[in-house]
C-alpha cells in the first residue's frame, strides 16, 4: 500500500472498513504509515477546526483507527494517547488489530484520564487486555458513578475494587468527596450505593467500619477525608461495634483533620456514656483535642476530661494537668470553662498544675487573667490605662539624585525589572534626564538596556508603567523619539503606548518630555522628581530647578511641571515665593501654586495643577473657565460624597460603593488633564481603573498627589472587591500612601482603611490594620473620624461585622495605643436604635468588654450606654451588653 493509497483509504472509507482492511495488512506494512496516520490525526481530529489545507475525512473515527493500526506505543504517547474512536467500539478495533501494546496503552490512557475507564472496560471484560491495576483505575469509579456494575463488573467491584476506595484518596478532580458533593442528590452518591450493598448483605459491614477508619488514619486532605468520616458515621455503628474499635477512635483524636476529630469525639462520647472506654486511655488521648483550633472540639474535650475524672477519681490530678492545655485557646469563654474544670478537679491546690497554669497568664484573655493569676499566686500586671508615647509625625528622608551616568543606568535597569517602588522609578527617570545625554554616546554601556527594554517592549506585560519604562529605555538606547515608537505600533490596537484616561498616560507624556530633552543632548533635572520619601517636592527645590531651565533658555515640559506642582510640599511655600520672580507662564503657574495672586494664563494643565496644589482649594472661576465644560478639581472642588449600600438580588447580596462628585465628569479635549485628577469613568459595567490594575501602576499613581490622596482613595474604594483573594493583591498598593509621611487622613482615606479591613484577603486586611496603627502612632487618624468612616459600612449590613471585629482585635493587640483606639472606636459606634443593630455585634461587644477589663476602665459614654441598655434578647450580644452596662457607673 502506497502512502497515497493509505491516505485515500483513511479519508474516504468508513472507520469500520479501515479497520477491516488494515487488519488484513501485515503489521510491518502498516507500521510504514505511522507518521502519515499521526499527521492526519493531528490535522483532522486533534484540532477543533481543521486547517484549510488538511485532507477531508469521511469518518472522523477513521484517523484514530489508522493511528491504532500503525503506531507504536511511543508514537501513541506522543499523541497523548488521544486516538480513540468515538462511535466505533474500541473492543471491535482491538479485536481486529490485536496490538501488542494494548495492556500498556490501556493503563497509560487511564492514568492520563480516569474518565476513560468506562470506554476501556469492555476490553478487559472480553479478555482482550489485562485489567488495569493503577490508582487511576479506581479514580475511574469516582469519575463514573453511573458506570455499569452489573455482571462480572459488579462481582469484581465488590470483591476487590470497592476496598481500594479506602486506600485511593484521589485529588482535586476525582475523589469520593467531590463526586458525592456534586452528585445531584443522595440517591446518586457512592455513599448511598455502598450503604445499599451493606443493607443487602453484599458488603461486609464490619470490614467497611475498619477500612473507613484506616482511611481516616491516612492523612488524606480535609475535604477528601470528610467523605470517609461521613461514611463511617452513616454506617451508624452500634456501641458493640464501636467498643472493639475504641483504640482506633482514640488514635484519631490526634488527627490534623477537624472532621475526623469530630467523628472520633462523637464515637468516644457514646462509648464513654456506655462506660466502654477506659477513662485513663481516654484522658491521655484528649491532649490533642484540648488544644484544637475549633472551639466546639475543645469544649467537648473538656466535658470528656471531666467525665473521665468522674469515672475514675484517681485521674483527677492528671485530668487537671491535662486541661491546662486548653488555655491555649484564644476565646475567653473556653479559657473560662477550662479554669472551671481545673478548679473542680482540685487543680488549684496542686503545685504542678499551678506551675503549668503560670505559663498561660500573659496570654489569657483580660477577663480571665485576674482569675488565672490569683490561682497561680501571681500578679496579672497593672491594667494598661495609659497608652505608650506616640511617635509623632514620621521623619522624611531626602531623595538624592543619582550621582553618575553609571549609577543612572544601573538604577534604570533595576526599576525596569521591578518598578514596585515609585520613588525609585522617579529617581531613575530623573537619572535619565540628568545623564541620558552623556549615556547616549556610550553604545556599549547602553547595549544591555537596548536588549532588555526591547524584550519588555515586545512582551508588553500587565504593567503599563513597566511598558512605558521599556519605551523610555528604548528611546534612550536607540535614540528614538516617542513619536517614532508610537508609529511602530500604530497598526496594533491592543498594543498602544497611550492608555486613555489612565494615570500612566501622565507618566508616558512626562517621560516623552524628558526624552525629548535627552535627544537634544540636554542634561537637566526632572522638575517632578520628589525631594523626599513622602513623594513631595520642596518648593525651594522646584524653584531652583525652574531657574536651571530659565538660565538655559529651555521651556519646561508641561506635564513634568504640572506633576511637579501637584507634588509641591505644603511646607516652605512663602519662603520659596520670596526668592522667586516669575516671568514665563510656567513660572507664573508655579508662583500661583506657591500662593501668589497672579492672573492665570491659558495652559489648562498647568493652571489646574497649580490650583490643585493650593490646599485647601477654593473655587477659582478664572481657572475653571479654562475648561469647557467645567471639570472637577480643575478650578472647582470635586467635593466627593461616599455612598454605600447593600444590593440584593434573589438570594445574593453585595456591597455597592459610589463616590459621585459635585461637578459632572466628562471627557476633556486633553485626556492627560482629567487623568491627573483621577476621573471616574465607567466602561460598560465597571469603573475604569484610572490608577491601573497591577501593583506597580497603582503604586506610581499614589505619588501623583502625595499631599492630597483623596482622589487616589476614591479609586481605592471603587476598585476593591473584598471577596477577592490574590497572592499579590493589587489593592495593597492603594495602602502605600499611609506608610509615607503626610497630612491627617481625610474622609475617603479613612473609608479606604475601614473598607479594606473587611477584605477577605488576609494580606489586605492585615496591611490596612497595620496602616491604622502606623497612622495612630503618627497622630494622623483619630477614633471619631475613623468611627464615622466605619459606620456606613457596618450599618449597610452588606459585609459580615465579624470581619471588622477581627481587624479591630488585631489592631488592639498591637499595644496600648491600638487598644485605647479600638475601645474609643467601638464605643463611638454604639449610637444606633435597637432595631438597627448590625448583625453579629456580639463579637464586637465582647471585644469592647475585654478591652475595658484590660484597661481597668469603665464604659462612660452616655450614648453608648443608652444603646447597650436598649439591646434586648439573648446570646452574646445581650450578654456582653449587660456586662458592659454592669461595669459602668450606671451598672
Amino acid at each position, binding site marked *: 500500500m502506497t502512502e497515497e493509497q493509505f491516505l485515500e483509504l483513511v479519508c474516504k472509507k468508513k472507520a469500520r472498513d479501515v479497520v477491516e482492511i488494515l487488519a488484513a495488512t501485515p503489521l510491518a506494512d502498516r507500521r510504514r504509515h505511522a507518521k502519515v496516520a499521526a499527521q492526519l490525526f493531528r490535522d483532522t481530529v486533534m484540532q477543533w477546526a481543521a486547517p484549510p489545507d488538511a485532507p477531508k475525512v469521511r469518518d472522523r473515527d477513521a484517523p484514530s483507527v489508522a493511528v491504532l493500526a500503525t503506531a507504536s506505543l511511543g508514537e501513541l504517547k506522543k499523541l497523548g494517547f488521544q486516538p480513540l474512536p468515538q462511535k466505533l467500539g474500541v473492543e471491535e478495533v482491538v479485536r481486529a488489530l490485536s496490538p501488542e501494546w494494548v495492556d500498556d496503552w490501556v493503563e497509560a490512557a487511564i492514568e492520563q484520564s480516569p474518565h476513560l475507564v468506562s470506554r476501556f472496560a469492555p476490553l478487559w471484560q472480553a479478555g482482550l487486555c489485562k485489567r488495569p491495576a493503577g490508582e487511576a483505575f479506581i479514580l475511574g469509579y469516582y469519575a463514573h458513578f453511573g458506570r455499569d456494575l452489573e455482571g462480572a463488573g459488579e462481582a469484581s467491584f465488590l470483591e476487590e475494587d470497592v476496598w481500594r476506595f479506602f486506600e485511593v484518596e484521589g485529588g482535586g478532580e476525582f475523589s469520593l468527596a467531590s463526586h458525592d458533593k456534586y452528585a445531584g442528590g443522595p440517591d446518586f452518591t457512592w455513599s448511598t450505593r455502598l450503604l445499599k450493598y451493606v443493607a443487602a448483605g453484599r458488603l461486609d459491614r464490619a470490614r467497611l467500619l475498619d477500612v473507613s477508619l484506616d482511611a481516616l*488514619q491516612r*492523612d488524606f486532605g480535609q475535604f477528601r477525608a470528610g467523605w470517609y468520616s461521613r461514611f463511617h458515621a452513616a454506617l451508624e455503628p452500634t456501641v458493640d461495634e464501636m467498643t472493639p474499635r475504641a483504640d482506633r477512635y482514640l*488514635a484519631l483524636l490526634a*488527627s*490534623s483533620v477537624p472532621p475526623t476529630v469530630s467523628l472520633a469525639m462523637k464515637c468516644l462520647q457514646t462509648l464513654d456514656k456506655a462506660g466502654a472506654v477506659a477513662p485513663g486511655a481516654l484522658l491521655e488521648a484528649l491532649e490533642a483535642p484540648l488544644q484544637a*483550633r475549633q472551639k466546639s472540639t475543645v469544649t467537648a474535650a473538656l466535658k470528656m476530661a471531666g467525665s473521665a475524672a468522674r469515672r475514675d477519681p484517681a485521674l483527677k490530678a492528671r485530668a487537671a494537668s491535662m486541661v491546662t492545655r486548653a488555655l491555649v485557646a484564644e476565646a475567653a469563654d473556653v479559657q473560662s470553662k477550662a479554669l472551671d474544670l481545673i478548679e473542680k478537679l482540685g487543680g488549684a491546690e496542686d503545685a504542678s498544675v499551678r506551675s503549668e497554669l503560670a505559663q498561660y497568664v500573659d496570654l489569657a484573655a483580660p477577663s480571665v487573667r485576674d482569675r488565672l493569676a490569683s490561682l497561680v499566686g501571681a500578679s496579672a500586671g497593672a491594667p494598661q490605662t495609659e497608652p505608650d508615647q506616640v511617635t509623632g509625625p514620621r521623619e522624611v528622608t531626602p531623595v538624592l539624585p543619582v550621582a553618575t551616568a553609571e549609577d543612572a543606568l544601573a538604577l534604570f535597569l533595576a526599576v525596569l525589572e521591578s518598578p514596585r517602588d515609585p520613588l525609585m522609578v522617579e529617581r531613575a527617570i530623573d537619572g535619565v534626564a540628568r545623564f541620558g545625554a552623556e549615556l547616549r554616546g556610550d553604545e556599549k*554601556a547602553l*547595549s*544591555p538596556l537596548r536588549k532588555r527594554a526591547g524584550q519588555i517592549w515586545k512582551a508588553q506585560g500587565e504593567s503599563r508603567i513597566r511598558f512605558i519604562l521599556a519605551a523610555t529605555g528604548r528611546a534612550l538606547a536607540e535614540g528614538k523619539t516617542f513619536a517614532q515608537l508610537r508609529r511602530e505600533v500604530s497598526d496594533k490596537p491592543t498594543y498602544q503606548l497611550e492608555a486613555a484616561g489612565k494615570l500612566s498616560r501622565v507618566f508616558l507624556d512626562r517621560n516623552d518630555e524628558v526624552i525629548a530633552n535627552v535627544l537634544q543632548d540636554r542634561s537637566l533635572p526632572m522638575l517632578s522628581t520628589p525631594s523626599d520619601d513622602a513623594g513631595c517636592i520642596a518648593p525651594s527645590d522646584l524653584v531652583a530647578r525652574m531657574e536651571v531651565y530659565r538660565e538655559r533658555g529651555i521651556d519646561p515640559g508641561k506635564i513634568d511641571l504640572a506633576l511637579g506642582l501637584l507634588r509641591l510640599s505644603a511646607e516652605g511655600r512663602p519662603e520659596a515665593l520670596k526668592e522667586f520672580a516669575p516671568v514665563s507662564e510656567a513660572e507664573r503657574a508655579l508662583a500661583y501654586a506657591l500662593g501668589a495672586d497672579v492672573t492665570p494664563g491659558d495652559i489648562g494643565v498647568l493652571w489646574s495643577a497649580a490650583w490643585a496644589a493650593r490646599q485647601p482649594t477654593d473655587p477659582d472661576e478664572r481657572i475653571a473657565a479654562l475648561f469647557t465644560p467645567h471639570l472637577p478639581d480643575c478650578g472647582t472642588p470635586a467635593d466627593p460624597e461616599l455612598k454605600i449600600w447593600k444590593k440584593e438580588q434573589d438570594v445574593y447580596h453585595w456591597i455597592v460603593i459610589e463616590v459621585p462628585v459635585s461637578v459632572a465628569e466628562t471627557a476633556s479635549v486633553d485626556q492627560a488633564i482629567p487623568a491627573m485628577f483621577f476621573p471616574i469613568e465607567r466602561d460598560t459595567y465597571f469603573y475604569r481603573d484610572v490608577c491601573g490594575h497591577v501593583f506597580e501602576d497603582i503604586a506610581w499613581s499614589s505619588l501623583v498627589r502625595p499631599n492630597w490622596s483623596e482622589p487616589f482613595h476614591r479609586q481605592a474604594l471603587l476598585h476593591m472587591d473584598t471577596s477577592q483573594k490574590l497572592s499579590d493583591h493589587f489593592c495593597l498598593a492603594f495602602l502605600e500612601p499611609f506608610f509615607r509621611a503626610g497630612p491627617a487622613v481625610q474622609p475617603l482615606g479613612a473609608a479606604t482603611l475601614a473598607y479594606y479591613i473587611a477584605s477577605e484577603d488576609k494580606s489586605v486586611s*492585615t496591611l490596612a490594620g497595620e496602616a491604622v496603627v502606623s497612622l495612630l502612632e503618627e497622630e494622623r487618624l483619630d477614633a471619631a473620624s475613623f468611627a464615622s468612616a466605619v459606620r456606613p459600612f457596618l450599618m449597610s449590613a452588606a459585609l459580615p461585622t465579624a470581619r471588622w471585629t477581627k481587624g479591630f482585635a488585631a489592631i488592639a493587640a498591637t499595644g496600648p495605643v491600638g487598644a485605647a483606639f479600638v475601645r474609643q472606636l467601638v464605643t463611638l459606634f454604639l449610637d444606633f436604635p435597637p432595631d438597627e443593630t448590625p448583625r453579629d455585634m456580639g463579637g464586637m461587644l465582647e471585644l469592647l468588654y475585654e478591652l475595658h477589663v484590660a484597661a481597668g476602665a469603665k464604659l462612660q459614654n452616655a450614648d453608648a450606654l443608652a444603646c447597650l441598655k436598649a439591646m434586648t434578647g439573648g446570646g452574646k450580644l445581650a450578654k456582653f451588653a449587660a456586662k458592659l452596662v454592669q461595669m459602668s457607673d450606671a451598672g
Partner: protein
Amino acid sequence: MASVEQSYRYGAMSELQDMPLGQRLALASDASHAPEISGGFLTARARYPDMTARGLRSVSEIVGSRFYVPPSMLARILREADPVATVSPGVVRFEGFSACCSAYIRLDLGDDALEVSHRRNGTTNVDFGPELRGALASVGKGTSLELTIGAEAVGIIRDGAKIVEKKVPLPVRWIKGFAEVQVAMAGMEHAFRLGRVAAQRFLRQLPRGKSDHLQWVSVAGSMPRLSMRETTGGVPLRGGHRLRVLEPLVAAADGLDIYTNRATDASAWVLDFGSQRLCLVLNVDPWRGFSGDGGLLSRIATSDGGAVAAIRAQLNWQDRIDEDGLADATGLTREEVRAGLAEVAAGGLAGFDLNRGGYFHRVLPFDVEKITALNPRLKAAGKLLEADAVSMTGDGGEIRSDGTTHRVRADGENWTCTCPWYARNGSNRGPCKHVLALEMHLERQA
C-alpha cells in the same frame, strides 16, 4: 526540567509491626547506594516513642508535600522520593525535602532519645510510604517502640516480590537543593526563640489554607507578631502554611527557635524537645528552590579542589565537625576550612546542625557531585570563557554576550553587573553568569 533517575532497592517494605511487648518500626534501607550491612544501621528503643513517631511523620509529610506546583512536576516524585537516614556516633538523623524544593526537614534524635543496642555509621534512603505514615499515628506515649534501620528483612512482600525496587526521576534542582540547603543553614543567625505556649499561639494563627503573602515575623515582648511590612530584625516568611507541619508537635516542645539567613531570606524553624529536634528550613518563596541560591558558585568556579580533598580525607561520620581541629589537621586556614566545608556540603557530604552550630558528616545517597557541574550559570559562564567574551577594564570587566556588552564592576566585596538577572536579584542569590565568567577569567590569569 532536567532530572536524573534515582533507583531505590529495598530488601523489604518498611513496616510498623506489633510485637509481644510493643511495636517495632522496621525501616528498610536502600541497598542501591550502600552495601547491605549485617545487622543493619541501627537497632534502638525510642525513649519518647510518640514524639519520635510524630517527628518521623512530619519528615514524611514534608517529603510528600508540594507547596508549589510547577506544571511539569511529576506526581510520582511525590509518592516515591524517600527520606534519608544518617546514623552517626551520637545522633540519628532523618532528612526530607519537599517535592517543590522549598522546604527541608530534619529530625535529629540524640542519644538521650534512643537506647541504642546496635549502631553502624552510615547514610541510606529509607522506605517510607503513606501507609507507614498512617500507621505511625497509632504510636502513643505508653507504647514500647523499637526502631531499626536496614536490619534483616522483615519479610514484608510488596506486589509479590521480595525485593522492592523503585526508579524515580528526581529533578536536578531537587537534588542540588537538598545538598545546598545545608549551606543556607550555615549562613543563618538565631533570630529569636518562642516559648512553647507562644509558639503554639503563633502556629495557630497561621492560615490553614495556602498563603503566599510575604510577611515578617518578629517578637514583641514574648509574643510573635506577623506583619505585612518589613520589621527590624523580622524574619521574612512567605507561604506560612508550610509551617503547619509543626503544629501537631509544638505542644510537646520546650520551645521554637527561629533562625534566618539575611542574605537569602531563608529561615529555619527548630522545635526543641530536649533530646530530639525537628528542624524545618523554608526558602523565602515556595516557588524557589535552594539550588537557585548559588551562594557557592563563585567558590566552585574558582576552586582547585585541593581544600575540599583535604577536608574530605578527614571526614569520618562526625556528629559535629570541629573546624579548628580540621584546620590543624589539614593545614588550611579557618576561613579556608569554612569555605571548603560549604563546598563539601553542597556536594552532599555534610549537613549543618543549627543547634550545634556546625557541620556533620553524612553522604547523601544521590550523585550530587555529578550534577554540580550541570549548574546552568556555571555552564553559561564556562561558555562565555570559551568564547573569549571576557575583557578586563580598570575596575572590573566587560563580558560580551549575544551582541550585548555587560559591565561588571567591583562594589565593596561584591560585584555588580548590568544584566537583568543581577537587576532582579542583586548579590543575594549568588553571582550571575557574567560575574562568574569574570571570576573564572581572573582565576585563570592568576
